[in-house]
């Protein structure tokens, strides 16, 4: 692996988040999601949305009923723009970055109709229905799709290529992905996600449909919008190691974290909380703990860490955005999400896990970390506005 890592750079403008909307297994809106994560109250239950009788695992965190992804994305984008205080005219020119696995109808479309179900076409349709006529694009990079979409939006806004960009993401637990995760023996056999804990047996999927407005701080100020958070830094790097396993020494994720801190101009001592990727799988959690030790140095053993996947599950392409919103809400509330499902310490994960309710951030910035197949790693750094 090369050591010639280029110095991360960024454009000159400050970047903020001015609106956020969420649908999760906990309900509609940020408050029920934040409340459950602060309480460490998991939302996992046997799946009722489709038949799981032939599967080895049956749990997931799902919103009741059978929500439709396109409709939920429309609602999330609208609500995020509402919260940001954007008029219809202000929305009209906005670009959309949409993170999705793809059009849910593609796999069962007739061959002739398949080109009409591309992820790019799907993103265009969401943008059109939301009244966003700027350029739309789709990100399909698995679990880092939405954090990559945020990083690209932040980078573009920082450079002045846009004043604001809507970033949206959606995954609703469905039979096909459930089946392949089950076939890969990736799903927790005991119905719980236990990040960084002894006895962890895997991940569980969860619903997430999320939208945020990423905006230049100056543009937000000019229209007197109140930011929810500063998007202070971002970083991404690859492992160059394996198709689906993380590099055990954590160096890829550590580079992403280091780049995010560098762009944010803050040191590890300014990190008051880490919302870890914490999938609850053996090798991934251990590699992530190694990455935190590399990137945060002497501060790694004391920085509070939890994985909110232990409550809302893994929302795949939407997961990183869901967790960014939780992280922002927790920072704003001045309380930290609990690492639920914890059975006992794992010596390969020597972290200061948040295990008690009412824990408080120890500094004014937080990291939201995500890793994905292909050795993709991202780190998003947020600060209080």
């Amino acid at each position: 692996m090369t050591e010639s890592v280029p110095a991360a750079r960024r454009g000159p403008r400050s970047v903020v988040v001015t609106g956020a909307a969420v649908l999760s297994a906990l309900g509609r809106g940020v408050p029920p999601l934040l409340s459950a994560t602060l309480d460490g109250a998991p939302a996992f239950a046997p799946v009722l949305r489709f038949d799981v009788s032939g599967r080895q695992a049956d749990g997931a965190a799902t919103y009741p009923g059978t929500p439709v992804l396109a409709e939920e994305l429309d609602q999330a984008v609208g609500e995020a723009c509402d919260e940001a205080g954007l008029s219809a005219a202000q929305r009209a020119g906005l670009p959309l970055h949409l993170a999705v696995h793809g059009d849910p109808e593609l796999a069962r479309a007739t061959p002739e109709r398949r080109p009409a179900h591309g992820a790019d076409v799907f993103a265009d349709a969401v943008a059109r229905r939301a009244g966003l006529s700027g350029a739309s694009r789709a990100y399909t990079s698995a679990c880092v799709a939405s954090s990559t979409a945020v990083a690209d939006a932040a980078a573009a806004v920082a450079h002045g290529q846009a004043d604001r960009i809507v970033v949206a993401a959606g995954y609703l637990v469905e039979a096909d992905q459930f089946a392949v995760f089950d076939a890969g023996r990736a799903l927790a056999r005991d119905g719980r996600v236990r990040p960084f804990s002894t006895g962890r047996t895997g991940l569980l999927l969860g619903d997430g449909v999320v939208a945020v407005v990423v905006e230049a701080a100056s543009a937000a100020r000019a229209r007197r919008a109140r930011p929810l958070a500063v998007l202070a830094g971002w970083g991404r790097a690859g492992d160059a190691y394996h198709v689906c396993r993380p590099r055990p020494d954590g160096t890829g994720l550590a580079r992403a974290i280091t780049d995010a801190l560098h762009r944010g101009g803050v040191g590890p001592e300014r990190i008051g909380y880490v919302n870890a990727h914490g999938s609850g799988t053996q090798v991934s959690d251990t590699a992530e703990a190694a990455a935190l030790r590399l990137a945060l140095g002497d501060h790694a053993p004391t920085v509070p860490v939890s994985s909110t996947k232990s409550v809302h599950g893994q929302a795949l392409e939407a997961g990183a955005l869901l967790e960014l919103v939780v992280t922002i809400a927790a920072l704003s509330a001045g309380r930290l999400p609990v690492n639920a499902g914890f059975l006992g310490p794992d010596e390969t994960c020597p972290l200061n896990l948040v295990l008690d309710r009412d824990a408080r951030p120890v500094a004014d910035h937080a990291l939201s970390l995500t890793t994905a197949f292909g050795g993709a790693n991202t780190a998003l750094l947020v600060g209080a506005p």
Partner: protein
Amino acid sequence: MNLTSALPLRPGPGPDAGPGPRPAAASAAALTQAASAACLRVLSSAQWPESAEDRAAPAIAGFVVSSFSPLAAEAARRCLLRGPGSGPGPAPGRPDDAGRPVTAVVVVSPLGDLAGAAHVAEAVDDGARIGPLLFFQAVPNAVAGHVAARWQLTGPVVCVADTATAMTVSALLLADGDAEEALLIRVDQAHTPDGPDRAAAVLLGPGPPPAPEPQLHEGEQP
């Protein structure tokens, strides 16, 4: 109102919209044209197929059912072998111990692994067994990881659905120092039983210096 220049828009008629046949989206010609439009330098390029002998992309261990990942890997292999620094010794302009430039892997596919997705959907609907290898190859990241590991590409891994976005993403990664080069791979699997599988790849480096950034933004004083 956005007073800055808009982000680059998705395709529309590009430089290939003139008389004559439009190159396939997953071709070296189309990617080279798109790179030029995005002010990126093409260091090498390749595609599948390139000749009548290209009938099926070489299989990759661990990838089953679908041609998506083999197509991406073969286009990437050809492209990287033709690129600078592929021979013995360091790449031009790099010190002896610098290794390969930090290289992003950007995969473009509007439909993703279509054959794999259709296979899984059919198995789910029929109640058939699903092989464990389909777990990881359900996302385009998987072959990006294969290529990154094979060629030691340590930059970001990004998957998007259209070429213009991929070029914009690559340009920003290079401008912001996230990567020194970007390997952009486009895969278009046949969407009908008799259709052609196509893939292409370009290795991209920074183009000429960009124009000065706009100085006037909404909310800022002139």
